[in-house]
């Protein structure tokens, strides 16, 4: 009776279904070429490449992200020995020394999923001395592109928040009382998804009141606990914005436990995992904004272009999709 979830290889490898698409770069945005960067051309097939993952591969996003990088490397015929992957286990200092160690060991290209947007000074000092291009994925690093790093590929977290706000406004008919389940405190993702959501709500639906915000630590259990508490003390809540799918699923369990019916409280969340999209199909979740973790193809494509001398834009923002009641059923297969 156990529900056998997909194994990592299939969920990440489902490339055609949920491949990332870059939004066209804004005209006039800063870009970077190999010459400007000052590096030397290398052949990816024989190059040593380092990938630094930030958090344990213990949630769908991270699993899909790491897997996508590895799969794409394999697809390009890069020998497994040439791709060095490390995982910082959510310890920032470990990520810094992981990357420094990879630089020492002679990697020629770095793909980094940073745990934090700031604090990369020492890495940049080391990498730029050796002219190693750095592609950061999923989270941006606050630094100078083309000198400190090459480019950022990822979602616009603030925009995700804004889009979630639009969905929430639509679900609530522009009025009501909303609770926010914040991500882990101090995390850039939390900060941006909160800012985007609040700003947009203020803009499009000023009658929606944000009456509660507490951290659910991006975890299902905490999400559930906090929702239980809040349903108790704020019985007038009719919308919950969860900053990731896990907390949304926790909130779903809490709603069931509190005897609420489907749709009594509208849930909007961000990520696009299978579980959450299934939640839309089941009628507990109103909408999910995707945050696509399949960085492999785009990252390697960008690197190839770069070494071929093409200009690379400062930011490569991917077009995240969204799931709602209309699309959830058909798109369930492409969720990760």
């Amino acid at each position, binding site marked *: 009776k156990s529900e056998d979830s997909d194994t990592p290889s299939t969920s990440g490898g489902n490339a055609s279904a949920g491949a990332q698409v870059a939004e066209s770069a804004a005209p006039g945005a800063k870009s970077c070429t190999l010459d400007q960067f000052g590096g030397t051309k290398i052949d990816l097939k024989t190059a040593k490449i380092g990938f630094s993952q930030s958090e344990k591969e213990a949630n769908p996003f991270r699993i899909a992200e790491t897997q996508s990088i590895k799969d794409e490397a394999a697809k390009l015929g890069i020998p497994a020995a040439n791709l060095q992957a490390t995982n910082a286990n959510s310890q920032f*200092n470990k990520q810094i020394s992981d990357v420094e160690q990879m630089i020492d060991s002679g990697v020629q290209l770095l793909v980094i999923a940073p745990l934090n947007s700031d604090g990369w000074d020492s890495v940049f000092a080391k990498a730029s001395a050796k002219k190693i291009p750095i592609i950061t994925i999923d989270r941006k690093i606050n630094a100078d592109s083309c000198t400190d790093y090459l480019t950022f590929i990822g979602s616009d977290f603030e925009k995700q928040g804004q889009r979630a706000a639009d969905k929430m406004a639509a679900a609530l008919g522009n009025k009501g009382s909303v609770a926010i389940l914040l991500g882990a*405190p101090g995390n850039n993702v939390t900060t941006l998804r909160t800012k985007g959501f609040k700003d947009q709500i203020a803009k499009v639906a000023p009658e929606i009141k944000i009456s509660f915000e507490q951290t659910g630590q991006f975890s299902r259990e905490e999400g559930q606990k906090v929702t239980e508490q809040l349903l108790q003390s704020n019985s007038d809540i009719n919308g919950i914005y969860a900053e990731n799918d896990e907390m949304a699923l926790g909130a779903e369990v809490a709603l069931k436990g509190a005897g609420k019916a489907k749709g009594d409280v509208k849930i909007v969340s961000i990520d696009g995992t299978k579980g959450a999209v299934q939640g839309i199909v089941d009628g507990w979740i109103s909408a999910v904004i995707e945050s696509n973790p399949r960085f492999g193809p785009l990252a390697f494509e960008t690197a190839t272009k770069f070494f071929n001398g093409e200009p690379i834009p400062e930011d490569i923002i991917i077009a995240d999709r969204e799931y709602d009641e209309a699309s959830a059923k058909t798109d369930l297969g492409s969720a990760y």
Partner: protein
Amino acid sequence: MTTLVAPVENDVRRSERSDRIVDLVQRQGALAVLVVVVIIAAAAFPNFRGYDNAGTILIAAAPPALIALGMTFVIITGGIDLSVGSLYVLGGVVSAYASKWGFLPALLVPLALCGLVGVVNGVLIAYTRMAPFIVTLAALLGARGLMRALSNEGSTTYLVGNDGFRSFGTGSFLGIGYPVWLVAVVFVLGMVLLSRTRFGRSVYAVGGSEDAASLMGVAVRRTKVTVYVMSGLLAGLAGAINAAKLGSGVTVLGTGMELDAIAAVVIGGTLLTGGAGTIAGTIAGVLLLGVIQNMINQVGNVPSSYQQVISGAFLAVVVVAQTYLVKLRRRT
């Protein structure tokens, strides 16, 4: 006074050469294990051997080493300090914040703040006889709360505004980062302090037997307060040099750091019951943890969960080996 009686053999335990050797290995057990591990790593991984890699290991070990140094003093008095991880983050955040006023404030403000928390820890422990474990557990929460309060719930990362401070963090001399040199100096001072001063002797005495120490005229309370202040200061300093290195006051650090420090200290042969331990051992313990981490990365592509299993197993093996060495020593 004249000799009153003919000397007799009071030494019930005849000391033997084998005893001494075991004794040496026990005292420097962590160092021995470190040497073995380094040799294995160097043989197995070509990349491990590089000078740069050594520099990377050292610079990464610098903040944990400072924290473990403070922890060594605390543990030798028979206490424990769980607040260091939080103080480390707090120190980094205020250091980055204060760096806009210059190099010295960036260094001194975190010292002052973390030292102050150390004073509170020390005073509560020394004067109210509350258990160190619980006092510093509260401080762990309190300092983290304070850090979050100062950084807008952790969402504001202050950038280091002082170029001098920044280059102190990233620059190097002879290929070894400045922070490592600083830590080396602090360690030498710590060693001298612990083994060659009256204060150091009183640290051992308090840990060996608090009652006896107090009857022998050791200022037990002052010693205790001092070690917790030192631990706080060193955690703050670790935070500051880390901020200099990272160029910002990162708020998402430090969880579990206290346990790493305790592990390093214990691997280094310091008794958690107090009264015995060395700083050389602690250095070996810190480096051992760093080298293991580095080795796991050298293997490449070890899934994160296996990394933890390996670290845990390794920890168990080292500590069990240490304990058997001690037992061996006792038996002879």
